[in-house]
């Protein structure tokens, strides 16, 4: 059985072995014992609330309780950009118009910005290939929204997720080739590695800081602004269903979109409910939907936050969970849990 839970001190080795599977492209999860150890310590301090909210890094692991294996990992950073500047390009609009010539030109424009400074970030999502099936991916990714809905006071107004940008078949980034290369005069992957290592002051020194019309870029670069990497498209759709949107912020190197939402407008904030664990009654049984939808259920304990996906459905503020489910959640009859339909309800319009 799978449970997503707050990471703990004993997970370091499993985390490292997971990181060896990740490959390039995810700069926050590299197989480096020192880096991972530091991060784990921050995560444990986060759940223990011994560091301030903006320094926190809530990491979750998906555990297969049948064999104790770690099947996946994901995280929420309390705030980005408060120690190193967090850069994006923001896409704005400028209109050039002359009534005399009857010309009206609407141009998309790139602004180098730190606007997202202080936002909370969804990051480091990785599911082991052996577990890529069924609801597992959804459970892992969406568990973070249930956590936010349970503890909204821990998060800033805005939540973001950076998506890997479009790459050509040869692994090159048309956006970088059209823009960054002129200023960095080095390889895309080289720049990417430097960023991962935290060598970021060069961004302020080398990037063009003046607003740029996207029209100045080669067509291939223009076309990929805000486009995700092929392999990232499903993750993007999933986050969009939860209420995140592309609002015109992109990565400065590969122009991958940043998805964002007000915390208060996440689906989980609107649609998740508290329920009391209670045995099934005739009345509840009668009122339950004929075709139950899978439901995400979590306990309400910060330090040992645990989430599962189950077929049980809350009815009138009560939910009947199996003994196994209760064990996974470390809950008992009478405890309060938080529930959220795993899938998005279709609009009734």
């Amino acid at each position, binding site marked *: 059985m799978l449970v997503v839970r707050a990471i703990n001190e004993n997970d370091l080795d499993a985390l490292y072995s997971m990181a060896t599977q990740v490959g390039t492209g995810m700069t926050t999860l590299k197989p480096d014992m020192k880096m991972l150890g530091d991060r784990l310590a921050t995560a444990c301090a986060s759940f223990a609330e011994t560091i301030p909210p903006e320094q926190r890094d809530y990491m979750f692991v998906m555990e297969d309780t049948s064999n104790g294996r770690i099947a996946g990992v994901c995280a929420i950073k309390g705030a980005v950009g408060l120690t190193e500047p967090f850069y994006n390009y923001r896409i704005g609009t400028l209109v050039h118009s002359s009534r005399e010539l009857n010309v009206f030109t609407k141009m998309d424009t790139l602004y180098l910005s730190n606007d997202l400074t202080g936002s909370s970030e969804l990051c480091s999502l990785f599911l082991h290939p052996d577990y890529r099936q069924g609801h597992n991916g959804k459970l892992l990714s969406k568990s973070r929204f249930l956590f936010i809905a349970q503890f909204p006071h821990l998060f800033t107004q805005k939540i973001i997720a950076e998506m890997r940008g479009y790459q050509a078949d040869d692994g090159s980034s048309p956006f970088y080739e059209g823009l960054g290369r002129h200023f960095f005069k080095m390889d895309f992957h080289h720049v990417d590695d430097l960023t991962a290592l935290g060598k970021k*002051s060069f961004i302020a020194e080398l990037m063009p800081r003046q607003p740029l019309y996207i029209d100045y870029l080669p067509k291939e670069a223009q076309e990929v602004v805000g486009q995700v990497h092929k392999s990232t498209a499903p993750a993007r759709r999933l986050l969009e269903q939860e209420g995140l949107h592309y609002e015109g912020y992109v990565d400065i190197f590969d122009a991958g979109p940043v998805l964002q939402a007000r915390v208060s407008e996440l689906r989980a904030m609107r649609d998740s409910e508290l329920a009391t664990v209670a045995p099934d009654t005739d009345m509840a049984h009668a009122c339950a939907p004929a075709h139950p939808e899978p439901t995400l259920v979590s306990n309400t304990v910060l330090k040992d936050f645990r989430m599962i996906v189950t077929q049980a459905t809350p009815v009138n503020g009560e939910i009947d969970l199996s003994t196994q489910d209760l064990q996974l959640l470390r809950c008992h009859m009478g405890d309060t849990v938080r529930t959220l339909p795993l899938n998005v309800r279709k609009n009734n319009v």
Partner: protein
Amino acid sequence: MYVVRPVEAGDIAALEALAAVTMPGVHTLPKTRDKIEQAVERSIASFAAQVDIPSEESYLFVLEALAERKIVGTAAIFASAGSNGTYFSFRNDVIQQVSRDLNICHNVHALTLCSELTAYSQLSSFYVDEALQERPEAALLSRSRLLFAVQQPQRFGDRFFVPLAGVTDEKGGSPFWDALGRKFFKMDFLDAERVIGGARNRTLIVELMPHYPVYVPLLPGDAQAAMGQIHPSGELAFNLLTAEGFEADEYIDIFDGGPILQAHKHALRTFTSSQTLRVRTGDGQVPEGPLVNYAIANNAGPAFRAVTIACPELEGCEAVALSPELQDILRVAEGDSVTCVRV
């Protein structure tokens, strides 16, 4: 013999004939009868005006072949560029990028829309008959404007500039325009030049042109290559002006990327090395020794006239020998002062 003199009402027909000749590099010379008449009238009024502060005056000079009484060249100077607005150009900025962490240091060029050339005096409309391009009369014509400015400093600014036409392809297209102006104006280069009448001081430029610096490395190769390059028709003017002391590189035209030469008057040879000498009557003999070409201008204000002569070095002299014929052409007499500069 040739003389440079202010344009007169009687020259209009000749100018119309000249305008019929294709002069792709000379946008600022009027092409239609109406426009030519206006330009001539404006010049006559400008020469006649009492000027304290340079403003909308525009002075048009012609080069006349005296034997045939034929106009073989034109050259103009505006007292104050953009005087009814702002003269816009691109300043060629260099941004030094240094990264200590990465041990990188390179320069990035950027073009910034600027109004710095506003109120400079502007040379324009330089055209000289092909047969004369290699002769000192070409230099005389170009330089006459500055000789006039030396004599009448109150009519001009302390700084001068000259926009030269940029490169275009066979069809009249401009690669620089295609990479920049077209994106904002949404029209062809020639159409844009037509609607704006060659001007660079119009409100619609603020409305349409980019206000943020344009990073040169982001321009296509052919547009970069066209920056600061002159149209072949402008080569003579370019050579005469750089010899005079004008400098290119700092500004380019916002439409076609052609070079804009500019200089403080202290850097211009006509200002720094012209001499005021007395006229004495020459004996008509060809003088001995090595001869050099001089431009000689009378000092008669609106009745300005200038010629070239070949004579020995005038450095350290107090007078210049002119034949009675030349004195007639310049309308000077023995003892009058003239302004002389080597060409």
